[in-house]
Structure formats: structure tokens, C-alpha cells
């Protein structure tokens, strides 16, 4: 506690300093006039000032005003010690910024008590000032961090405009950051996916999960994966990342290349509504699953609903921020309210939704994010997302000996090497079918010398399977070599599979049209999927050209 004593009278100063010492205040400074007091105050920053009123050069009133100004936001108690007794002078002491006065000759007890009281206020003020300073420091830091994160989010979550022309959508956050999420992406098979979701809560914390979800969604869309797999993968990611009390309600929709057929996976979102052009709701895709990020893998159900839309019908998806809108009477809008909007205005767009929402709220403040997405069924121009195929010719050779043939099933691995390496997604299923047929022919008929006619009956099928297992485990030496050569100029993949067997008869390869037979369909399938198929070398070598 540093006290500045300002008085032109040496004896007064001495008495005051002496009294302060007795009270335990030893950190005291003296000034014999106003000018010295101001200079000194600048240097020593006193916590309290005892000030005489009548002084030469600059009187106490003036000094008080200046000291107060210098102190700024922190309370600096100024106590006048004065011989003046008229009311006007005393009142002025307070008007110029003084906080208290004590008459001369001063009463020690009263003065000490006043000093202690003002010191307390000074301490409080100082504390508040420090806290304010810290608060604005944190606020600035948070604002800056928000700006950075916002920047990242805008870039990471931007929705590709080129194919969202089929989707009318809006995201309307309640705070800087959105707990709601909307993503859309083309599929490699000519259709598209979109995801509408809602993290528990809103603001930065709930938006954090959006990044991994978005990354996973984009990557899986590019590969044309199923909704199930998407839901499972996102669930797994969030389960690992999010704290237990946080989860992600989401609906994922896949629209196939016809623009009519849709698959819907809904976990915890309000029902997606399907309306015909008259506004009638013809189907509700209710939530059938728990939100993402809650269930362990083995508990997770990913069943998908499929529906064939009519052109012109609309699929309307929205977050619970819309359902839970409350009007001035504290009534929730509810699903009925939304369905009424759709009935009343069959062609309402997302802007219409927003203006209805504003009207409904009246003077009330919205406190959750609002997201609305509308897809109108229509023919889709190919919004193909095949990825950019590599221009570099490439050859992959896989040589398998008996040990490998027994222990591994190389086809899925090979397919994923080829599709990932070349950036070609969407062909993985067909490529698998082709490679799997050829490989199994080489293995079963070439190496293991099995007879397909066994497969004619259900039991035979099983017998075949058993025999295959037996022969496989007894296999001692064999080789199957798979080579896949990518020719970027012809946009084709040349595949050759060569086995070490004695060769098999071509008459196994029956016609595809004969669907009654449970075998011999493979090669016909390969012929349909490939540009050319050629068996040489007694059937030990097969060459096919697979167009990409």
C-alpha cells in the first residue's frame, strides 16, 4: 500500500506520515506542492493520495482532477485533508473527483478507518481491472482462433456447386459455428450422395467433429461406397474421437444415376419427407437407427431404406432446429407444423422455409442451427466423379505359389491396388467380378482340376466346395501368375492369368442365357464385362481386355 502525501506545510506532512507509520503504512511518499505531486505520482503510481486543498502554484482541486485522469480505469482514492469548513468547499472536493475529506486537525482514528475503507475499494478495483484485462486477452485469442478455424471449415466443408444444382439447401447456424452439417458429393456411378447431420450442442465444440466426418464422406463418395459402409465408418471414427456425451445425428442419402431411386439411412434425424407436386406427403423416412458415435461396431445396425421416386417429387430433409422452433407462446413447431408448410406451399423452397421460420419465431430468439435440404427428383446429367485416371502406363504382376494360393485370397487386394493406384473408383465391382472369375477358373479348373458339373444341385454345390477345400489343403506345388497392365492411351486394362495346371476343356464355358444352371456362368459374365477374352495354351493362359 503506497500512499502519497501532498501538503505545502512540512509539519502537516510530518504528522500525516508519522500517523501512517503508526498504522503500519511505511511505503509513503511526500510532495510539497501539486506539480511535484503529479510528477511523483507518474513515477511511483500510488494506491492512495492524501491531499491538501490550499497550496501555492496548483491547488488540491486541480491536482485531484489530474491524478484521477492519470489513474484511468483503476480506482485511485483521493482523500482531501482540509482546514476549510464551509459546505461549498467541501462539496467541491467531491465534485472535482475526490473521494472523501477529513478536517484539519485530523482525527487519527477516523482518518485511519477511511484509509482502510478506500484501500479495500482500491484493491477490488485493481482486481476487476486485471480480470477485465485477462478477459479481453482471452476474448481476442478466442476470436483469432475462431477466425482460423472458420477459415479451415469454409475450405473443408464447402459444397461443390457443380452438382448441387439439383439440391436446394441452406445452413443457418445459431452461433459462429455450426453443429449442423451438410455435405454433398458425386458418386462415380453417375449419382450422388448427400449428408445432413447435427452434432449435439452447437458452437466450436460441436463443429469439431465435422472435419473427420467430411473427410470420410468425401473419400467414400469418391469410391462409390454404400451408405451402410459410410454410416459404419463415420460411426467408428466418431466413436473413437468424440467424448461420450457427444454424438452426431445424421441422415445419409444416395441418389442413383436415374435421379429417381434413393437410399436413405437415418440415424437420429427428424423424418425425411417425400412430397408429391400437390404437396401431399407420400412417404416419411423416419429415424431407424441411433445417432452416430454411440454404438460399438458390433451393435451398429446400418439397414437402409430404398425408394423409387417419381420425377417432380421432392425429398425434404431438415435438422431438429426447424422442428424445435418455438413461437411467442412457447409452442414448438413440430413435425406437423412443417408438414403443414409443405401442404400449404407445395413448392416452398429453402428460403421459404427460412422466412416461415422467422415468422413463426416472432420476437423470439432462435437458439439452434437450422438446416434444410430439398432434392427434386429429375434426370441427372452425369455428374460423374470417376477421379482423374493416371496417365502413366503401369504393370502389376502378382506371382502366387502354392503357399500363397492356400492362405490368401488375392483378388480384393489386387482390385484395391489397381483402383487406388490409378485413381479409378466405381469400377471396383466389375473388376472384382472379372478377376475373381478368371482366378477361380485358373485355381479350380486349372490347378485343382475340379469338375464344374458337380455344382448342378444344392448338395453338389456343397460337395464341390468341400472337395475344393480338400484339394486346396493338399496342394503342394503350383503357381498362378496374374498380371494387369494399364494402357492409358487405350483406356484399358490388359489382364493375363496363367496357371501351372494341365489345362481345362473349353466346353465348361456354357452360355450365359442358361440361367437354370448354377455353374458355367462365370466366363459368359467375363465376356460381357470385357472387350475381349482369349484362352490359349490349353486353357492355362487367359488374356482379357477390360475397358475403363
Amino acid at each position, binding site marked *: 500500500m503506497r500512499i502519497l502525501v501532498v501538503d505545502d506545510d512540512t509539519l502537516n506532512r510530518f504528522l500525516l506520515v508519522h500517523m501512517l507509520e503508526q498504522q503500519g503504512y511505511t511505503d509513503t511518499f511526500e510532495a510539497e506542492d501539486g506539480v511535484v505531486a503529479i510528477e511523483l505520482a507518474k513515477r511511483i503510481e500510488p494506491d492512495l493520495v492524501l491531499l491538501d486543498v490550499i497550496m501555492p502554484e496548483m491547488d488540491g482541486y486541480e491536482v485531484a482532477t489530474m491524478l484521477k485522469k492519470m489513474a484511468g480505469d483503476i480506482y485511485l482514492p483521493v482523500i482531501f485533508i482540509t482546514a476549510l469548513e464551509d459546505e461549498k468547499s467541501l462539496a467541491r472536493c467531491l465534485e472535482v473527483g475526490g473521494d472523501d475529506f477529513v478536517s484539519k486537525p485530523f482525527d487519527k482514528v477516523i482518518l485511519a478507518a477511511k484509509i482502510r475503507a478506500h484501500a479495500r475499494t482500491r484493491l477490488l478495483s485493481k482486481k476487476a481491472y486485471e480480470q477485465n484485462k485477462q478477459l479481453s486477452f482471452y476474448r481476442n485469442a478466442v476470436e483469432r482462433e475462431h477466425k482460423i478455424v472458420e477459415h479451415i471449415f469454409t475450405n473443408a466443408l464447402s459444397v461443390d456447386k457443380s452438382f448441387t444444382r439439383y439440391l436446394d439447401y441452406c445452413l443457418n447456424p445459431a452461433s459462429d459455428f455450426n453443429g449442423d452439417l451438410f455435405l454433398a458429393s458425386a458418386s462415380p456411378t453417375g449419382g450422388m450422395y448427400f449428408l445432413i447431420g447435427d452434432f449435439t450442442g452447437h458452437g466450436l465444440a460441436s463443429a469439431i467433429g465435422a472435419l473427420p466426418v467430411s473427410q470420410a464422406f468425401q473419400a467414400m463418395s469418391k469410391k462409390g461406397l454404400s451408405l451402410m*459402409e459410410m454410416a459404419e465408418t463415420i460411426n467408428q471414427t466418431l466413436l473413437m474421437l468424440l467424448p461420450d456425451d457427444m454424438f452426431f445425428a445424421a441422415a445419409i442419402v444416395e441418389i442413383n444415376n436415374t435421379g429417381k431411386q434413393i437410399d436413405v439411412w437415418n440415424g437420429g434425424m427428424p423424418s425425411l419427407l417425400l412430397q408429391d407436386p400437390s404437396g401431399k406427403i407420400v412417404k416419411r423416412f423416419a429415424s431407424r437407427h441411433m445417432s452416430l458415435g454411440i454404438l460399438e461396431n458390433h451393435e451398429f445396425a446400418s439397414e437402409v431404406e430404398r425408394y423409387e421416386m417419381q420425377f417432380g417429387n421432392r425429398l425434404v430433409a431438415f435438422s431438429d432446429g426447424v422442428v424445435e422452433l418455438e413461437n411467442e407462446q412457447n409452442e414448438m413447431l413440430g413435425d406437423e407444423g412443417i408438414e403443414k408448410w409443405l401442404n400449404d406451399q407445395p413448392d416452398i423452397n429453402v428460403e421459404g422455409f427460412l422466412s416461415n421460420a422467422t415468422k413463426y419465431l416472432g420476437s423470439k430468439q432462435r437458439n439452434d442451427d437450422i438446416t434444410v435440404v430439398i432434392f427434386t427428383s429429375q434426370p441427372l446429367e452425369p455428374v460423374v466423379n470417376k477421379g482423374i485416371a493416371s496417365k502413366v502406363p503401369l504393370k502389376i504382376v502378382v506371382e502366387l505359389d502354392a503357399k500363397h494360393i492356400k492362405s490368401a485370397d488375392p483378388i480384393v487386394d489386387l482390385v484395391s491396388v489397381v483402383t487406388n493406384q490409378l485413381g479409378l473408383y466405381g469400377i471396383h465391382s466389375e473388376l472384382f467380378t472379372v478377376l475373381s472369375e478368371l482366378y477361380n477358373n485358373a485355381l479350380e479348373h486349372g490347378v485343382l482340376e475340379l469338375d464344374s458339373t458337380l455344382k448342378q444341385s444344392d448338395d453338389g454345390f456343397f460337395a464341390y466346395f468341400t472337395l475344393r477345400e480338400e484339394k486346396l489343403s493338399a496342394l503342394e506345388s503350383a503357381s498362378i501368375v496374374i498380371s494387369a497392365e494399364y494402357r492409358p492411351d487405350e483406356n484399358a486394362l490388359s489382364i493375363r492369368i496363367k496357371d501351372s495346371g494341365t489345362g481345362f476343356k473349353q466346353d465348361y464355358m456354357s452360355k450365359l442365357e442358361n440361367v437354370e444352371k448354377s455353374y458355367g456362368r462365370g466366363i459368359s459374365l467375363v465376356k460381357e464385362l470385357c472387350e475381349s477374352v482369349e484362352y490359349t495354351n490349353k486353357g492355362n493362359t487367359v488374356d482379357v481386355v477390360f475397358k475403363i
Partner: protein
Amino acid sequence: MSLDREFSEDGKELTIFLEEKFDFGKVQDFRLAYTEGNDGVSSIVINLQKTEYMDSSALGMLLNMQKSLRDSVQSFKITHCRPQVLKILQIAHFGKKFDIA
């Protein structure tokens, strides 16, 4: 690992969920899925929503199922096909034998 199955409430419809890969390796599991406890089942749904990879032995297995259950089951459906898988079923003219949705 056995395949996921689901019975309708009246027990008349059995849905079998295939996995990512539907090929020869599923012979036993698939056979079990349509033979075990199927009394009273008159309709079978093969749900391919997860299936990305399928070859001709899967086609053979589907036909075998149909053949062996022909007397008790009236309706065979294949549902939720991925576009690529649908293409394979179409090439094989499976629409003639199965109700593909």
C-alpha cells in the same frame, strides 16, 4: 462368421444380409442362412446393401437357394443392390428369376 438375418413379425419373410464380398467363400454361411429355422417362411429377401464384390459363384448360390426352396417359398427378392452389382445381375439376366428392387 455367419450372415445377419431378420424375420418379419409374422415370421413369413426372411431377410438375409450379405456382406461386402459375396463369393465362393460364403457357400456355407449362405446355405445356413436360408435353411436354418425357415419353417413357415414364404418369402426370402436378399439384401445386398453392403455388397460391393460378387462373382458368378454367388449367382450360382442364389440359383441353388431358389431351386432348393422352390416348394416352400413363393417370392425371392434381391434388394438394395449397389449400381455396380445391379449391373452384374442384369448381365446375368437375373431379373427373370428374381424380383430385383
